[in-house]
């Protein structure tokens, strides 16, 4: 029985923090009636599935393999961390609205309610034995009928002059995976001089969470407005224009954050000196008090080393009907390690991919054909200030390959569904927490 308390218990630390008050006070009736999903008996599907990576994609696929596959589908989830610090809403750590503690999720429900074998280990490409269909985690081998890789992103510093070859601790913070770096960036911002400059660099799209960097600039600017008047945020965007919610962010940059945020599209960085936090760019030399370089992102190393990324690409090539690799049979890749454009690299969407993948594997394990026309969706809310938020939404439909071709189909946006909020509001801000609570419960509970 997943009741409200149990769900709250999934959050580390001060559980009621972020999701307290308004977020839970409404619909008490609904909460008291909440019935946990449970793993059914045999469904006709049987087999062993190993999932690598317990983030938004991996946790979702593991859960739904059990929920839809039933008791005869054994699932092992290999995850290197003891819990999941959320990247979604982590920008609210930067302005002090919350802490990472409050948005970190445990694997207890996946283990105890869904009977998933959660193994805390790190795996590398060399641990995958494709011929024998087994994967090594620690000292144990885990045989599989299907392997799902959902390990997220790797950062690529090779194209950032001045950063190549630096050790991880020498590099400027990315804070682009929720966790210790988020808190560290928060501390840097809190400790910077009042007249200082925060510099955020945005890599060329596609990158994880399209609205994320602009949202980050907004919440930091909001904080500076209140606590460090005179400080500013410089956004160096490698893209020719704002990549997501163009209307909302450009309005905020010019309006409430005019004079605080300086936005440079088409920015080219020709040099970075980490010691002095100085950047040479096409718009001049910039000295940062706080430097946040968000580097380009590729598939995680385990996916690369498993030979699943075609030459010239940076993410795994997959068939979006099932997310099975187009290179290696019986291995699926979902989430940010998969090349599945135009679907964005985003947690909400990764959850949807997890379900498509789970449904496909359950059918395959029961000798049935996969769904010929899966639908996924991306939706998210972005804080614009400490009290208001905007949203974006898009639904993706499957477009089959052309008749007679040997190619694969792709997911395409349904044009009428592609939208952003007309304006940021406190209503959207409140809704944001409901979305977040339900999304994380759908994924981890």
């Amino acid at each position, binding site marked *: 029985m997943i009741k409200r308390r149990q769900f709250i218990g999934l959050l580390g630390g001060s559980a009621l923090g972020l999701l307290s008050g308004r977020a839970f006070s409404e619909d008490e009736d609904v909460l008291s009636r909440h019935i946990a999903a449970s793993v059914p008996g045999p469904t006709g599907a049987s087999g062993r599935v190993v999932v690598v990576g317990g983030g938004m994609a991996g946790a979702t696929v593991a859960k739904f393999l059990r929920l839809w596959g039933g008791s005869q589908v054994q699932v092992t989830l290999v995850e290197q961390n003891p819990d999941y610090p959320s990247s979604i809403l982590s920008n609210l750590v930067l302005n002090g609205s919350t802490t990472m503690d409050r948005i970190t999720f445990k694997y207890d429900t996946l283990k105890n309610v869904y009977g998933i074998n959660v193994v805390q280990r790190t795996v590398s490409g060399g641990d995958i034995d494709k011929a024998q269909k087994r994967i090594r985690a620690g000292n144990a081998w885990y045989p599989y009928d299907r392997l799902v890789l959902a390990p997220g992103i790797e950062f690529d510093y090779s194209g950032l002059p001045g950063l190549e070859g630096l050790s991880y601790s020498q590099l400027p913070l990315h804070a682009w995976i929720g966790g210790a770096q988020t808190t560290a960036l928060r501390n840097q911002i809190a400790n910077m001089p009042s007249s200082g400059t925060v510099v955020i660099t945005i890599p060329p799209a596609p990158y994880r969470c399209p609205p994320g960097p602009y949202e980050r600039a907004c919440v930091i600017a909001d904080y500076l407005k209140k606590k460090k008047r005179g400080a500013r945020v410089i956004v160096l965007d490698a893209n020719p224009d704002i990549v997501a919610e163009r209307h909302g962010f450009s309005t905020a940059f010019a309006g409430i954050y005019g004079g605080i945020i300086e936005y440079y599209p088409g920015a080219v960085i020709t040099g970075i000196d980490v010691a002095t936090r100085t950047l040479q760019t096409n718009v001049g030399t910039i000295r940062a008090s706080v430097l946040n370089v968000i580097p380009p992102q590729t598939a995680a190393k385990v996916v690369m080393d498993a030979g699943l990324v075609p030459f010239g690409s940076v993410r795994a090539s997959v068939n979006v009907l099932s997310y099975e690799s187009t290179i290696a049979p019986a291995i699926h890749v979902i989430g940010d390690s998969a090349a599945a454009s135009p679907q964005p690299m985003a947690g909400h969407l990764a959850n949807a991919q997890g379900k498509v993948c789970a449904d496909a594997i359950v059918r395959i394990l029961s000798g049935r054909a996969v769904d010929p026309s899966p639908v996924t969706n991306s939706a998210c809310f972005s804080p614009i200030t400490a009290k208001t938020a905007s949203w974006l939404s898009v639904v993706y439909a499957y477009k089959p390959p052309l008749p007679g071709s040997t190619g694969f189909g792709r997911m395409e946006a349904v044009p009428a569904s592609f939208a952003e*909020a007309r304006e940021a509001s406190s209503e959207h801000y409140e809704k944001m927490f*409901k979305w977040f609570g339900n999304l994380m419960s759908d994924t981890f509970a």
Partner: protein
Amino acid sequence: MHCLVRTAFPLALLALSQVVAAETVVPGRLLASNCFQCHGTDGRPVAGLASLAGESASSMYYKMLELRQKTKEDSIMNSHVRGYTDQQLWELSVYFSQLPH
């Protein structure tokens, strides 16, 4: 509570015998799972927003058609609903109607 819905629409009436998952191909389920991210797994939210499990299929279907017409409100749901065809909206409404509240 299972609502057996009879309809005059020229849409296929889905077989309701597979309500409990003793099957691996469940019509409407994968489609309906698009709603879980905001409305909770199986349409049972933990954090506000509408509960969908066990709701009348025709009520849900008509509600979504109504949202699709709305242009004044700045609501994410009104835009989101435009991503689905009438047939899809019906299929997922039927799926939710079969779930216990």
